[in-house]
Every structure is written in C-alpha cells, then in structure tokens.
C-alpha cells in the first residue's frame, strides 16, 4: 500500500470505476458524493443500449469493486488548499480530507426539457422525457402513459441547439431513442413509433444493428425533420409539427405519447467547483482538457485529473474506459512525484 490518497469528486460511473482501478493499484480512494447514494445517472436507468443489459447489474458491479473506498455522501467540496500539489479539502459537513491527487468525475446534468417550452413538457398531459420513460420501465407506472397507439420520439432536445446555448451532440440520445422505441413497441404491440431526427448518429458497434431491428422488426418510422412545435388538441392528443425535409413538405401528426430525448449538459456544480479547484472550464461549460490526444484526463492544475462526462458527452462504456485511463494517469503521476 502506497499510503497515497486520491480524492474523487462524484460517485457516478466514472468515479466508481476509477476508484475500483485505484484500489487495485494499491491506493485508498476517497469518494465525495453530493447525493444520498452512489451511482449518479445510472440509478435512473432500466436497461442499457445496445444489448439491453440491466443498468442495476452494472451499477452493482461498480459498487462492489469500489467498496473499499472511503465514502462521504450528501457532501460537496467547499474549499481546496493546494500547497505544492498536496491538497487539503474541506467538505460541506466540515470534514477535512487530505489528498495527494484529485479526480473530478462530476458527470453531466440532464437537460431540463421544460426549457424548450415549445415542446410542452410539464404543460401537456402526454409529453414525457427519456428519463421519465426509464423510470416508467422500472416502476411500470406513469399516469401520462395510457396504452399509447402512436408514440413519437423527439431527438436532440437540448442538444445541438444554439438557442439553449448547447452546441454539442449528446451522443447517446439517437441510440437511446431507438432502444426505447423497441421497448415500448414490445410493451404495446399495437403501437406505431415515430422518431423525429436531424441526423442519426449510430456511431458504435451494434448501434446500426438495433436501428435495423427497429425498422425491420418493429416498424419504427424515421422522419428527418426537427420538431418545431408541439400542441395539444381537445382530446388531449399531442400534435407535433415538423418539416418532413425528405419530401420538402410541412408535416403534422397526432400522437398519444411524445418522448423528448433530453441531452447532456455540463454539470451545474462545475461553475461553483471549478474556481475552488482552479480548473478551467471550456466555452461549452464542460471542463477543459489540457490535451485531447492522447488522453483527456489532465487539467491545467498539477495533480488534478478529470474523467467521464465532466469533459463532454460520453456513452457508459466510454466513461468507464476514460475512468480507467484517468486511474493510470494518476498512478503514473503519483509514482513520478515519489521518484522526483
């Protein structure tokens, strides 16, 4: 045991995976989590693309492998004293932690769909988000979902949109919409699903396969046009308007359920945390990487590292790989500080 400690800010997928790796490298990680339990956004998810693995199984594995860590729940980082890269960190409940290195794994915030008022989330009875739908898959209950016959999915809600100041593609929504369309179709075999997209980004292995499955086995219809506005008719049906750009005609359709694919924004805690750590944010609000190639785990502060969606949208496997890479960066850094 080296005796060196690493403070990990954020106990989601990236934090837990890097903790597990640091433990196997002989370190004692300390995880600071603002919520009352570990897991981050995976907690809200039922099944994961592309293979339909249960999110809970993945989370349980992460929790088991990282359980040797010291864990502070319901805690925020208030102050960081940096003396030659020896860190003294004060937490919100007055705990003080000494660390030889800090890893930022604060993750992302899901875009609040009510900010796109024209889509009617929180206004109309049958407009939900991707997160609501996963909760429905877990609980089997949502009063907004009543055996829908026609279901729509709106891609890029809060992504690729200058109007809400997020230029990024959130990467995961295209394939999530396809996954969720298949799952809903399996629950409601009489239903017809429509995906409204600008570009379909099926970039990873297996993604094209479920896109093909959605088309050929579940009859999901893909309409190339960004939804411009949503309204509700007298029967509480959701009326969706877009341009069907491939036929160059305005299009209108009445649906029983509309699912908004809310994207990933920078974690709102970063505006408070970045000045405390002295770590720079990029123009888009995500943390800035010192070097994007070969690896994006270094920050502008010596001894402070970063992993996961804190540096931009990532899939879960990408986040886990990034967390492993950060653990190795930290290992190399702590070794070089011993030798140097």
């Amino acid at each position, binding site marked *: 045991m080296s005796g060196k400690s690493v403070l990990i800010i954020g106990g989601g997928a990236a934090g837990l995976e890097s903790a597990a790796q640091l433990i196997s490298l002989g370190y004692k990680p300390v995880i600071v989590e603002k919520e009352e339990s570990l897991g981050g956004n995976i907690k809200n998810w039922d099944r994961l693309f592309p293979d339909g693995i249960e999110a809970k199984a993945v989370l349980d594995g992460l929790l088991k492998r990282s359980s040797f860590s010291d864990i502070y729940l319901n805690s925020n980082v208030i102050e960081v004293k940096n003396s030659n890269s020896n860190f003294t960190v004060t937490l919100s409940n007055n705990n003080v932690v000494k660390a030889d290195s800090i890893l930022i794994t604060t993750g992302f915030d899901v875009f609040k769909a009510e900010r796109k008022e*024209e889509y009617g989330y929180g206004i109309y009875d049958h407009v939900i988000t991707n997160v609501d739908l996963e909760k429905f898959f877990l609980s089997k209950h949502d009063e907004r979902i009543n055996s829908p016959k026609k279901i729509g999915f709106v891609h*890029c809600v809060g992504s*690729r*949109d*200058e*109007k809400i100041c997020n230029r990024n593609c959130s990467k995961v929504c295209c394939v999530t919409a396809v996954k969720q369309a298949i799952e809903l179709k399996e629950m409601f075999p009489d239903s017809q699903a429509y995906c409204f997209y*600008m*570009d379909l980004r099926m970039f990873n292995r297996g993604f094209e396969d479920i896109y093909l499955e959605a088309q050929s086995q579940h009859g999901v219809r893909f309409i*190339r*046009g*960004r*939804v*411009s*506005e949503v309204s509700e008719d007298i029967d509480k049906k959701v009326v969706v*308007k*877009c*341009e*069907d*750009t491939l036929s*160059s005609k*305005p*299009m209108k359709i009445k649906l029983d359920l509309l699912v908004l694919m809310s994207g990933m924004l920078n974690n709102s805690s970063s505006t408070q945390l970045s000045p405390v750590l002295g770590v720079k944010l990029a123009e888009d609000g995500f943390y800035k990487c010192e070097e994007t190639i070969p690896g994006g785990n270094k920050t502008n502060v010596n001894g402070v590292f970063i992993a996961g969606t804190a540096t931009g949208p990532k899939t879960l496997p990408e986040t886990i790989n990034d967390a492993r890479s950060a653990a190795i960066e930290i290992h190399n850094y702590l070794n070089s500080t011993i030798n140097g």
Partner: protein
Amino acid sequence: MADFGFSLHPSSSIDLDNADKRLYKIVSELEPDIKKCIACGSCTASCSASNLTKVSFRQAILKLDRGLSEEAVMLLKGCMLCGKCTMTCPRGINTRNIINLILRYSDNKKIK
C-alpha cells in the same frame, strides 16, 4: 440533316462544376450565417406561409448553394418576414437578413 422529330431534354441533374453560385457568393459574404444550415427543417415547419404556399427557407438556401438561384427566389416570394424561423433555428441563423439579401440581390441585372 433529316429531322426525326426528336429533341434533347435539358438535364435535370445538378452540375456542381458549372453551378451559377454568384448570388450565393454575394449573400454569403454579406451574411456568413447562410453556411451554418444543417437542413433540420425547423424554419419551414414553423413558417406562417409554408402551409399554404411553397415558401421554404431551408430549401431556398439549399437551392442557392446548388446554383439554382431562380428556384431559390421563388421559394421565398411569399415570405411575410414574421420571424418565426429566426426564433426556432437551432443554429441561430439570421434568417431575416438572408431572405432580404436574396430578394434584394436577385433583382441585380449582373446576376441574371
């Protein structure tokens, strides 16, 4: 030469090598926003005129880029400059300025 009663039909394909991009060039210099379109169709979907007429901002700037300037102008003739497309565009394009520039410079004799 004997007249067999056949004639050549003009090609309907877009010849990008010989496309007449003069109007596009003028507009893009004055309003570079025109290059930012991702053809999502939000402008046409929200357009007050597009349900009843052929107005389509998305199609118009695509046609302009392909050198089909006259078709582009026709697609904007019914525009009432209500500004809904500016509000809805996810790339924040100044649609009003582009529409005004296209209509203004399309009358330019040098381009026609």
